[in-house]
């Protein structure tokens, strides 16, 4: 072997191209190499390069689970790799902000958006942005009406054009006087929408049209490429996809006609499939089970978007009829059965069971790529 001195000095662009490929734990370790590297790891430019590189790697699966039989036990989060092995239990209960009950909303660029419910007298709740890889947590109080809130539906996403993370809250205000009288009206819609921006660190109320106010959000949220999506029902029971452009802060409603199925209405779940927004309609009863997957495509037209049913998966060989769809994880659909998780590969059409069956109820499954992104956005 030649002497070490024979190795040339690498220009910064090559060094950055090497370093952006390192997992977060190594970046943290190599902070102590020299001041240049330590400062580099804190620059927005490097953090963005690192994030966009890891976004193209195999994402981990982030599972949010709660104990079925012990409601006093705090819920947990864990990360699972491609071999279905748990690579990390995220010790969320050791974080002060998460002392109370919490639920995960979504994850984007390594940031996890969590809602913490304070079970105290005021019943208030707050949100937290959390980067588990660098152990950064930021509390985000909800805007002023927190004690008056009856229900909230959230969304969380990132827009690279404006380089900002935003949280959307469809809220509903408690109305004690009318609560009993107008029970029917209470069931649908919401009273307003507020949006939090990480860059400005503040909430802002958005003016929205009546048609959006009367739309009831009925699904999980998912964010792709600068847009947050929900599935909703309108007053006339027709269905729409609600999308929010994070950069322009514009809502769009796209009508969705459910695939005709005389045997009943499906459970609808949103996910991301090959970096595109996807809708799953899951039809089931105790003798049959099938799923339609619709992937959003761009078409010329007023809204510029359309949804088309691209695939149907029939006759699942499932031992339990009672199963739910959690998310898509690369080419696998992740299903939840009462005591276990299963993967269905859409290419090979094969089933795989998670090795550890547990008494945990899985509430959320999302793709997760660790990152250096700071919740302080400085």
């Amino acid at each position, binding site marked *: 072997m030649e002497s070490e001195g024979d190795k040339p000095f690498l220009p910064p662009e090559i060094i950055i191209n090497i370093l952006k490929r390192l997992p977060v734990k190594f970046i943290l370790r190599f902070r102590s*190499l020299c001041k240049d590297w330590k400062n580099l790891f804190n620059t927005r430019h490097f953090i963005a390069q690192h994030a966009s590189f890891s976004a193209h790697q195999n994402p981990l699966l982030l599972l949010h689970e709660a104990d079925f039989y012990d409601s006093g036990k705090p819920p947990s989060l864990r990360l699972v790799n491609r071999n279905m092995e748990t690579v990390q239990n995220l010790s969320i209960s050791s974080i002060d902000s998460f002392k109370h009950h919490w639920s995960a909303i979504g994850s984007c660029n390594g940031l996890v958006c969590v809602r913490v419910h304070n079970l105290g007298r005021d019943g208030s709740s707050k949100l937290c942005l959390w980067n588990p890889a660098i152990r950064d947590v930021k509390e985000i109080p909800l805007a002023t009406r927190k004690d008056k809130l009856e229900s909230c539906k959230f969304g969380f996403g990132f827009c690279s054009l404006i380089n900002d993370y935003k949280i959307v809250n469809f809220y509903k205000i408690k109305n004690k006087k009318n609560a009993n009288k107008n029970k029917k009206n209470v069931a649908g819609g919401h009273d307003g929408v507020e949006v939090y921006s990480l860059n400005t660190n503040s909430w802002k109320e958005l003016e929205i049209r009546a048609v959006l106010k009367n739309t009831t959000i009925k699904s999980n949220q998912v964010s792709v490429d600068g847009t947050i999506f929900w599935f909703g029902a309108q007053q006339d029971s027709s269905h729409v996809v609600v999308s929010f452009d994070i950069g322009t802060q514009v809502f769009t409603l796209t009508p969705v006609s459910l695939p005709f199925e005389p045997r009943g209405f499906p459970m609808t779940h949103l996910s991301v499939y090959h970096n595109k927004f996807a809708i799953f309609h899951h039809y089931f009863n105790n003798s049959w089970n099938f799923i339609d997957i619709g992937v959003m495509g761009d078409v010329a037209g007023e809204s510029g978007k359309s949804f088309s049913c691209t695939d149907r998966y029939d006759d699942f060989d499932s031992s339990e009829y009672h199963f739910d769809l959690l998310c898509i994880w690369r080419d696998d659909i992740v299903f939840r059965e009462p005591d276990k998780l299963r993967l269905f590969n859409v290419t090979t059409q094969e089933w795989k069971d998670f090795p550890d069956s547990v008494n945990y109820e899985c509430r959320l499954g999302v793709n997760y790529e660790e990152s250096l992104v700071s919740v302080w956005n400085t």
Partner: protein
Amino acid sequence: MSSSVEAITVLSSDGDEFKITVSAAKLSKPLNWMLEDVCFSDDCDEVPTIEVNSKTLVKVIEYCEKHAPRANSGASDSDAEELKKWDIEFMKMDVKDILFHILMAANYLHMEGLYDLACQTAADLMKGMTVSQIRKIFHIKNDFSSEEQEQLRRQHPGCSFD
């Protein structure tokens, strides 16, 4: 440029002559430009120089010749799989000693595939190294004062300076 030319001769920075086939040279933009600019007919004896030392250039040409058929014609998945395995073996050889030279050469010759491969190899090697080993190969001096080291240790328990 004559279309009958199948291989060209280039000089390394050490002055050694190397043959590289035209299809392999096309993997590099600067080499491709050279093909178009330089006269390769028999009566022209100008041999272009590539600013890469002989030891490195051998490896770069080996990479180009292996990858050229696929780059020029497109290939099946099984070929891609085979090529991936070849890449891993290629980087396992005596490349460690000249990895940084290959990085510089791939960057200078605008060879995206080799550049990515070499960067990833370097990153993977770093995962098994201590902080002081990395300082050595990157020619980096520890410029933290003892107070700053102490402060970093307090902020990030377990962080090592050796």
